């Protein structure tokens, strides 16, 4: 009954004070919404185990080369085979390959992602075909009939859902292949696949340097931790580096969960930044609501004293106050779950639309049972933190003195100290949080507006992969590229066509190089450089600047000495004296002939515009000398903005099919869209941090204003005293501003370095970027908030006659 009457009393109190209730619920809902959203997002995308029996133990193994993390097909198959023989930490240690493949039937050709897999692959992912059978290890044996399992999409699109598809043939990369099974639409492992073929890649009979690259995954043995598995890998990779210094120097490996591997190596630090930001926001919300509750408790000091005098035990009084905070937090918690759910739905849709890849199958970014449990726990903990301090503080005073109204001074002094601590905390948290959030937003904005070193807006791009069987030699490939270019140039809107292995903004191969006349010793630590094959007209089409020397021309033929055009970064890193023309280097792994530097051009950013990519040296090599099967087509349009040319992508695809029906163009889009899609992940994170920044601004403003306003209202009597003693308005303003400035200075002295440290920490990963402007504007903003928070309440108090202020309770 006591509890019921306390709840009833707390409810009545909240209803009687709608403004107070609305403000506290608003503040707490803001904090809890962000917190529940972040929890659900992180849990649904990264933390929740994969939905398989051994989901918690499935791991991706990636390589680390010169400090850079690589996922996917990053292990030379020889290394994988060596590791497989020696690793002890895994129940299953296996590899697969992933590549885009050309699928053609008698009437059409399409480009899809294909997976080359073993039996293990389907076993650990608990795959069950819709009909037919899965790949077995026998299918991968040399001489076995080429078979493929196709996805539901391909079954529908290429076979019109024909139930008799099993046993039918389709050409995969021009090779006739028998369909043996159809997978359900829901099957995705480790990412959205469309066709699965036997894994036949091997190091047997292949020189180590020519080894194909494969993706490695495994299932950890029960009880083996990631740390232990990682340590084992480090040792084994170090041994490989010792055995094969040319190929494996500076190369190590790392164990990832599949979820983290899919999100990229920067994910842990981004998650940490998000958790910090959300933690700060929730803390700000707690402080704000706690302060409001404390003010109310102070206002009701006399009522509390009367209850104490009438024999109410302290625990009962504390509980009575706690019910208020619990009700506020519960209402906020319910609203927060609703808002977070809505936000997740919108964000999920946006993410799906903006990401350049299909979302991983395990993504379950919504309010789940786990997030609901977490929401309840967070809400209860928040209610406790928010309510307990004000309740304890409000019931710890001398109730007799309060009743006699004699020593309000002692109580006010304590609450004055608390108010100061609260204001300082608000300044510290909001400063650090705003710096962190705006640093993140600023960084992404810088990245989105960065100069990639080439023209971007007037370029259309597409990818092409030539079938291995039909294009087995360099001459045939060269002929194809020439034919395609000539055909495309018949379109009036196309002014130039070129080819490259890596478009600006897209990742380029990063390889160990050896400079001529440099002795790297027995344990070589080779430097690395991006290597990008380009057509001879690429530099002109992309409007790059020649610094010195010459560009590729007819002298750089397939049978002439290998040549390279390098970037400024290459020169600055490897030829500090600037004397680079005529110097030679070679790619260590392929161990081909020496490349002679013939020219220097401006830097081009390959990959996301992070500092490590911006600073990478690049060597452009001629595709006339090393024509590859996979290439990006660069199509320069007559229009300033490629996106404005209507129907071009369809026409380009048609033209390419006429040139080679087994080599459809794919990824046809403007270069700007390609870059934007690459940055979609960071843009999404940036948008989140923008929300954090806005939330922290609102909470900082309302919090600082609330505390200062409340402090000044509590000091109305003091203002009356000071005025009675002769203080004029300016004296009163000065007094409070002086006090406020002290708190502001302490808060900024802690918050500013804390924020700068956080930004600096993220700067290392190019996730955030500080700027002097931000370091000035944010403290200035907080100072302005502080001044406003002082000015208006003081102005209100000064509107009273001194005698009224003296009587103010």
């Amino acid at each position, binding site marked *: 009954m006591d509890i019921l009457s306390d709840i009833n009393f707390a409810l009545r109190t909240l209803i009687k004070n709608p403004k107070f209730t609305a403000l506290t619920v608003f503040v707490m809902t803001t904090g809890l919404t962000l917190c529940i959203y972040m929890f659900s997002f992180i849990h649904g995308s990264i933390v929740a185990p994969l939905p398989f029996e051994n989901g918690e133990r499935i791991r991706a193994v990636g390589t680390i080369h010169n400090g850079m993390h690589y996922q996917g097909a990053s292990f030379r198959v020889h290394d994988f085979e060596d590791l497989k023989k020696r690793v002890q930490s895994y129940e299953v240690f296996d590899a697969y390959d992933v590549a885009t493949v050309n699928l053609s039937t008698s009437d059409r050709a399409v480009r899809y992602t294909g997976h080359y897999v073993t039996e293990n692959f389907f076993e650990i992912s608990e795959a069950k075909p819709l009909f037919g059978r899965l790949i077995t290890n026998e299918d991968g044996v040399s001489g076995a009939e080429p078979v493929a399992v196709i996805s539901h999409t391909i079954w529908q699109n290429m076979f019109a859902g024909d139930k008799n598809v099993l046993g039918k043939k389709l050409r995969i990369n021009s090779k006739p292949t028998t369909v043996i099974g159809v997978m359900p639409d829901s099957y995705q492992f480790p990412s959205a696949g469309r066709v699965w073929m036997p894994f036949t890649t091997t190091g047997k009979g292949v020189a180590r340097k020519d080894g194909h690259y494969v993706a490695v995954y495994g299932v950890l043995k029960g009880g083996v931790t990631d740390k232990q598995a990682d340590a084992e890998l480090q040792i084994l990779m170090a041994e490989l580096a010792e055995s094969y210094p040319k190929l494996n120097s500076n190369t190590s490996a790392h164990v990832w969960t599949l979820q983290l591997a899919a999100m990229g190596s920067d994910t842990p630090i981004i998650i940490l930044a998000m958790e910090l930001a959300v933690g700060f926001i929730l803390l700000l919300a707690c402080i704000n609501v706690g302060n409001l509750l404390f003010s109310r408790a102070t206002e009701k000091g006399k009522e509390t004293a009367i209850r104490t005098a009438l024999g109410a035990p302290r625990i009962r009084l504390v509980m009575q106050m706690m019910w208020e905070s619990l009700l506020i937090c519960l209402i906020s918690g319910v609203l927060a779950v609703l808002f977070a759910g809505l936000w997740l739905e919108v964000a999920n849709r946006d993410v799906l639309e903006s990401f350049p890849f299909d979302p991983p199958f395990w993504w379950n970014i919504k309010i789940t049972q786990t997030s609901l449990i977490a929401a309840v726990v967070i809400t209860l903990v928040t209610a406790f933190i928010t309510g307990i301090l004000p309740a304890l503080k409000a019931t710890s005073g001398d109730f007799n003195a309060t009743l006699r109204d004699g020593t309000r*001074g002692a109580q006010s002094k304590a609450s004055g100290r608390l108010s100061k601590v609260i204001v300082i905390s608000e300044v510290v948290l909001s400063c650090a949080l705003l710096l962190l959030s705006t640093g993140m937003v600023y960084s992404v904005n810088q990245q989105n507006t960065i100069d990639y070193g080439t023209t971007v807006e007037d370029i259309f791009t597409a990818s092409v992969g030539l079938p291995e069987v039909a294009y087995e030699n360099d001459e045939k490939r060269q002929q194809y590229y020439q034919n395609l270019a000539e055909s495309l140039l018949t379109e009036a809107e196309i002014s130039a066509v070129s080819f490259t292995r890596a478009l600006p903004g897209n990742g380029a191969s990063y390889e160990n190089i050896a400079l001529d006349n440099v002795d790297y010793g027995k344990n070589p630590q080779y430097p690395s450089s991006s290597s990008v094959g380009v057509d001879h007209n690429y530099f002109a089409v992309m409007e790059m600047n020649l610094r010195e020397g010459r560009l590729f021309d007819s002298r750089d033929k397939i049978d002439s000495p290998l040549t390279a055009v390098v970037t400024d970064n290459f020169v600055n890193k490897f030829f500090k004296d600037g004397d680079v023309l005529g110097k030679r280097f070679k790619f260590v792994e392929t161990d081909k002939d020496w490349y002679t530097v013939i020219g220097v051009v401006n830097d081009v950013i390959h990959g996301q515009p992070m500092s490590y990519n911006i600073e990478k040296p690049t060597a452009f090599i001629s595709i006339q000398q090393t024509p590859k099967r996979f290439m990006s087509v660069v199509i320069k349009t007559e229009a300033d903005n490629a996106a404005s040319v209507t129907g071009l992508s369809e026409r380009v695809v048609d033209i390419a099919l006429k040139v080679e029906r087994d080599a459809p163009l794919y990824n046809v889009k403007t270069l700007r869209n390609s870059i934007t899609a690459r940055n979609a992940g960071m843009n999404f994170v940036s948008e989140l941090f923008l929300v954090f920044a806005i939330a922290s601004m609102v909470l900082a403003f309302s919090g600082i204003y609330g505390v200062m306003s409340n402090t000044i209202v509590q000091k109305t*009597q003091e203002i009356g005293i*000071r005025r009675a*003693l*002769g203080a004029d*308005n300016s004296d009163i303003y000065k007094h409070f501003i002086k006090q406020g400035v002290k708190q502001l200075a302490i808060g900024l002295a802690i918050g500013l370095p804390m924020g700068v440290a956080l930004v600096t920490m993220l700067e290392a990963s190019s996730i955030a970027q500080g700027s002097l402007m931000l370091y000035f504007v944010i403290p200035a903003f907080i100072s302005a908030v502080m001044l406003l928070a002082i000015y208006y309440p003081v102005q209100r108090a000064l509107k009273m006659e*001194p005698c009224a202020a003296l009587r103010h309770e």
Partner: protein
Amino acid sequence: MKTLIKLTNLKKVFSTDEVETHALSDINLEVKQGEYLSIAGPSGCGKSTLLSLLGLLDTSSGGSYNLNGHDVVDINGKQRAAIRNKEIGFVFQSFNLISELTVAENVALPLTYRKDLSKSQRAELVTAALEKVDMNHRTKHYPSQLSGGQQQRVAVARAIAGNPSIILADEPTGNLDSKNAELVMALLDKLHAEGATICMVTHDPRGAKRAERVIEIFDGRIVSDSPTMPSQIEEAVA
């Protein structure tokens, strides 16, 4: 003796919604320099309102107020603050010391609003005031560390620190026990004896008796002004 305060037909009307309450009507009063005046009357009669008007803590609704030769009815807020600071010393019933300031800082507070005093001059005035109330041994204490009587003595020191023309005391013994009340009243007597002009609102007939002139207010009007305490005041107060 010089006239320090002259009120002519002073009025105070409080307006709430459509109701007008005449707190004070046609108050005519003169206070000479060095006088010890007591204002008495039943609760709600307008004593404290009159003291607020005398102390420029409130504005009148009509009439004139001359303080030390200056008309102070139509002056602005800044001028009122300056007059409160230099001419008037306040002693309140609930002491009204600032809890975050030490005894010395509380006493120095009105002096800090004077631009013409150096730090050392302020310190001298503070020491002198605290010595007068015998509280110079508690300079670094905070109000919460003092008894009620001690707090009120500090309040008196604050009132006299700037050598004001008049001390306005509003029920100075209202929150004190009889022993401490006697000590504070004795202090006011002493200050008066040294030449201070004191105007005190009190319920306490024993306190009122110590003044040399008693004004009785009833329903916002002065109903008696005599050098001795009339018997009806004793009855009313009792």
